[in-house]
């Protein structure tokens, strides 16, 4: 971004966030007590969020515990993450793949907060709506899914709203939800092959036509072609027009 960054507004003006977020630790304590060993990882970002990673078998129980014990009756969303780095790179710097980190199929995947051992994780966000007077609580659950058995228990009996989210997750990632009343395609046509949000599914529109953003950095007439400045090219589009 080429915006003039005027003034010296200190970005670190806000005081150090307290290292311990007692409220969220409290929620975590409640959930750990209820679920026992099923909690395999957790992460508290003070003032921002609580992540709880549970074993796949207790995915449903975890959501139920949050609903009953923390009052998280609002089903916010459910989705999945594919932690494999994209073998197609990020497309944007060149007509051929130039990933920031070249793809190495044998490398282990880095996973995000609260850890993870598998390529696929499902996650969902539940919140309570006690509003001004009560104590707000919200929690993000994650669960690892082994590659050879991408299935997890459906949350539809607990939250009606999980229906569409699980259908979307099923067609985008190929994750089966046991007990779902009807896993049908939501967005994609019925004959669609493949799981588009998996990292190994190529974005074909980008492969057949190079990213138009790179046209912006072609050299001025009479000027020798400048060295490919990957980052400058990538940055070019955000500003203009």
């Amino acid at each position, binding site marked *: 971004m080429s915006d003039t960054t005027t003034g010296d507004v200190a970005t670190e003006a806000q005081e150090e966030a307290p290292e311990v977020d007692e409220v969220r630790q409290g929620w975590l304590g409640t959930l750990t007590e209820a679920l026992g060993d099923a909690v395999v990882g957790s992460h508290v970002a003070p003032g921002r969020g609580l992540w709880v990673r549970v074993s796949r078998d207790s995915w449903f129980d975890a959501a139920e515990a949050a609903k009953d014990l923390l009052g998280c009756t609002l089903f916010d969303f459910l989705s999945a993450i594919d932690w494999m780095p994209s073998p197609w790179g990020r497309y944007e710097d060149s007509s051929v793949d130039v990933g920031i980190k070249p793809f190495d199929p044998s490398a282990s995947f880095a996973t995000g907060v609260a850890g993870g051992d598998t390529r696929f994780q499902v996650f969902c*966000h539940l919140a309570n709506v006690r509003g001004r007077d009560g104590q707000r609580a919200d929690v993000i659950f994650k669960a690892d899914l082994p590659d050879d058995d991408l299935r997890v228990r459906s949350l539809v009996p607990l939250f009606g*709203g999980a229906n569409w989210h699980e259908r979307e997750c099923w067609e985008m990632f190929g994750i089966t939800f046991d007990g779902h009343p009807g896993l049908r395609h939501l967005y994609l046509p019925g004959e669609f*092959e493949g799981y588009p949000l998996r990292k190994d599914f190529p974005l074909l529109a980008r492969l057949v036509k190079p990213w138009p953003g790179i046209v912006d950095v072609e050299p001025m007439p009479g000027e020798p072609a400048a060295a490919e400045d990957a980052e400058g090219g990538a*940055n070019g589009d955000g500003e203009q027009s």
Partner: protein
Amino acid sequence: MTVTERQQRAYVDAQAADARVNVELETDEGMTLNIGPQHPATHGTLRVVAKLDGEQVVWADVVAGYMHRGYEKLAEVRTFPQVTTLVNRIDWLGSFANEVPFILAAEQLMEIEAPARARHIRTILFEMARVANITLFLGDLGAQLGAVTPVFYAFRDREHVLDQIEAVTGGRFHPNFDRIGGLKDDLPKGWIADTKAVMERIRSFCDQVEELLFGNEIFEARTRGVGVVPAEVALSYGLTGASIRGSGVDWDLRRDGGVIGLAHGDVDWKVWTHPDGDCFARCWVRLQETREATKIVDQLCDGLPGGPIMAKVPRIIKVPEGEAYVETENPLGAMGYYVVSRGDLGPFRVKIRSASFSNVSILPWLLRGVYVPDIITILASLYFILGDIDR
């Protein structure tokens, strides 16, 4: 570049299959009624399939996906500043509001906070997006129920709001104005006075609509007691925004969400709820919300702090590794972005939680047992934008 033949074939097949319809209609006794995809009540291309017994719906399903654009996939091949261009197009009537939660999530990961002036202007534009969006809803609501006049009033007065948004951002519909660490530009000269005049105009539009519609006997007859959503059902379906406040749940992320980076906490306003949970309640709450939004804009314009509009951000934006989920109260309801960054120029994964998706997912439950004309009332009162369902 090696694309396996199978994948290419799958792509071609998918393109061909796009042309076909993707739901199998069961055919037994009773009549199947298709509403949409090209129906004015669908704000885009949503199809509602209803199986009827006489005039009553016995089963209904929603077919979405006619406008699925795959923003979650596209965001993975964009840089962070480029993503706002995409997400602008999710809820196209309140575009600026779409950018805000994404930018806030990126700011959270980078541990940047926008300066006070940027936060205020951001909130002003955020609320103006809401005014522009809901103004159209109020007018369109009349059109759905057979009253033609309000829609002209709505388009007339919304235009002034869009003019003000255009004066700042250069775009009527797709501002693409929010930046990580602040805003692209400051307000133009004379803008504040004009805006306050426009807000006055919107308030008088609200009065007009209230008189024309909400006091109207036919309107009441068609909306009162129709499409009742109890609070616990609304919550389990993840309804948010006016749809949940119309069910009596006092929940507004502007007040309760603890969102850092917006200035709603600095002004005085009220969260309206209605206990009934029917179509009337949802529409009424939206009317009050429009009024509150104009008040928020007025107060923020009065108390606009000076100073810079951008925090210090690097020219090349690389977002540190981490995950953040930020949700704000958008015109249609709660909208959030779950952003996973791997320390790259672009996000590793973006999960877009859009309000209409959850709000509309209740339709199969809600439409069961209603009469045919009420389908349109219910669709109108839930108020969705198709881009916000399909993303």
